[in-house]
């Protein structure tokens, strides 16, 4: 049993920009805005910030952000790798730093203009963007993240006899949550099963609505010790447990070469997460699951133990992952229907659920799982109020 981290650090404040296809401000300006907003939300001064953690792919460096927000001297600063796998890992790392006394007021952020900017996979030439395997997969025509996920999705649907109609429940549930959320890009755009089945293909078996939005936006949280959080403006949201997971012999994005590629990275992360937790899968009231592509959600539902291997297609039927169902998932609309900011809006929505302020609030929710991406080395946090 790992106890050093449990509930010792808390998220005390959060900030978010508007989410849109295009925002005029630069990524640096957006990052500064959300960090200042998070400090204001918490009731701490930006001059108290002495710790910073973000994704290794974040373009607004800690040095720049420190200048922009007028931080204190930083005594802890670090990055977590693997894009969307790393968001909860950033929060978990900051929680460890605070619990270990390495810093007192930490900020975690992501600022990204994916909507306005280029698609990473469309950059010119043949430069591999991920590890060695891309050297083989991109010249073979597996160009985009959606293609990489579709290869595993095809095998998964085939192996377990899961239909497109079952997979559609992911996109439909998150869209309904977005329809209730005025911040969501797809707030005013309902989605039906007929719409889903008629959508154009992107990479068969995945269609347009299986793929996330392309968004501009930024979000941040400010974290302090549990003791300090209880004296601040907002109710504390405790980091009950945090974990990372990188399976043996993993190849990021195209993990096609291990014995069973359908055993996704969340299985490794879940073992450590629940070993360090008083909360098991059955005790989790609401979940924010990384959803750059809809099959990732099915894999994580299995990986974090909400159902057995191959059972997620049935699990998501009959409104089970909508508010009112047995495990509401991505209650802001997630990456598919609110905004795609590498999953950071899943963290802020987790905070809202624990504060009781979501636009799709789960009544009496006391615990929330937030996960990073499948198909890359991943991470997760368990929040509690």
């Amino acid at each position, binding site marked *: 049993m790992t106890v050093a981290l449990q509930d010792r650090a808390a998220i005390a404040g959060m900030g978010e920009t508007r989410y849109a296809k295009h925002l005029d401000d630069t990524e640096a300006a957006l990052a500064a805005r959300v960090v200042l907003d998070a400090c204001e939300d918490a009731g701490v001064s930006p001059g108290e910030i002495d710790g910073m953690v973000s994704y290794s792919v974040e373009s607004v460096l800690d040095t720049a952000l420190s200048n922009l927000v007028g931080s204190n001297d930083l005594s802890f600063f670090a990055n977590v790798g693997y894009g969307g796998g790393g968001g909860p890992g950033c929060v978990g790392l900051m929680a460890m730093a605070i619990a270990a006394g390495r810093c007192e007021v930490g900020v975690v952020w992501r600022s990204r203009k994916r909507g306005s900017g280029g698609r990473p996979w469309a950059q010119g030439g043949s430069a*591999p963007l991920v590890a060695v395997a891309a050297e083989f997969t991109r010249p073979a025509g597996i160009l985009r993240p959606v293609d990489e996920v579709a290869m595993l999705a095809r095998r998964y649907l085939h192996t377990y006899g899961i239909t497109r109609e079952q997979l559609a429940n992911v996109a439909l549930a998150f869209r309904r949550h977005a329809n209730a959320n005025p911040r969501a890009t797809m707030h005013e755009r309902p989605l039906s099963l007929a719409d889903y089945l008629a959508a154009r293909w992107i990479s068969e078996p995945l269609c347009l609505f299986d793929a996330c939005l392309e968004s501009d936006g930024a979000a941040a949280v400010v974290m302090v010790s549990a003791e300090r959080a209880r004296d601040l403006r907002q109710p504390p949201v405790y980091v009950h447990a945090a974990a990372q997971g990188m399976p043996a012999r993993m190849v990021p994005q195209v993990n096609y070469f291990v014995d069973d590629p359908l055993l996704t990275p969340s299985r490794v992360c879940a073992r450590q997460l629940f070993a360090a937790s008083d909360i098991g899968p059955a005790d989790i009231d609401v979940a924010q699951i990384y959803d750059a592509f809809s099959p990732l959600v099915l894999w994580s539902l299995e990986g974090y133990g909400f159902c057995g291997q191959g059972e997620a297609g049935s699990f998501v039927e009959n409104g089970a992952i909508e508010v009112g169902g047995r495990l509401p998932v991505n209650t802001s609309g997630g990456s598919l229907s609110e905004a795609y900011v590498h999953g950071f809006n899943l963290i802020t929505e987790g905070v809202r659920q624990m504060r009781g302020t979501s636009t799709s609030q789960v009544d009496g929710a006391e615990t929330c799982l937030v996960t990073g991406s499948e198909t890359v080395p991943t991470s997760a946090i368990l929040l509690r109020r």
Partner: protein
Amino acid sequence: MTSKSTGPVPQIVPLLWGDADEFWRATADGVLRLSRCPDTGRFFFPPAPASPWGSHRPTEWVAVGGHGSIWSYVVVHPPLVGQFAEVAPYVTALVELDDAPGARVVGPVVARPGAAVGSVSGDQVHIGARVTLDLTSDATEALVVPRWVLR
């Protein structure tokens, strides 16, 4: 995703950068060579300089046969870049080789040896379909990417 332009289409080609050079040298010579652990005899992919198993000795490069089954596949649709933008939709597959279990190899599925990427449609392909390796050299390519022909 690009509109027709007057310049050449940027090509997406393999890089030679060390650990996998032997793979590309072999395909250019018409042979599929994969890396194998000298201790356990297990194949692994992508190629690496040392085996992940046993005493982690340097990889053996072993020529393998060209018969296998489709483990999974995608039908790729636009928006796309490079030479692939002009041939979409196309099928590309992950193939398990009969004589190198565990070493799944990726490549486009084509109608016959030397046929273009995009020459088969998605409804001609299924998981488990038998395929044969095609290492037909294309004079426009510096290196030969394995392709799979439906049997």
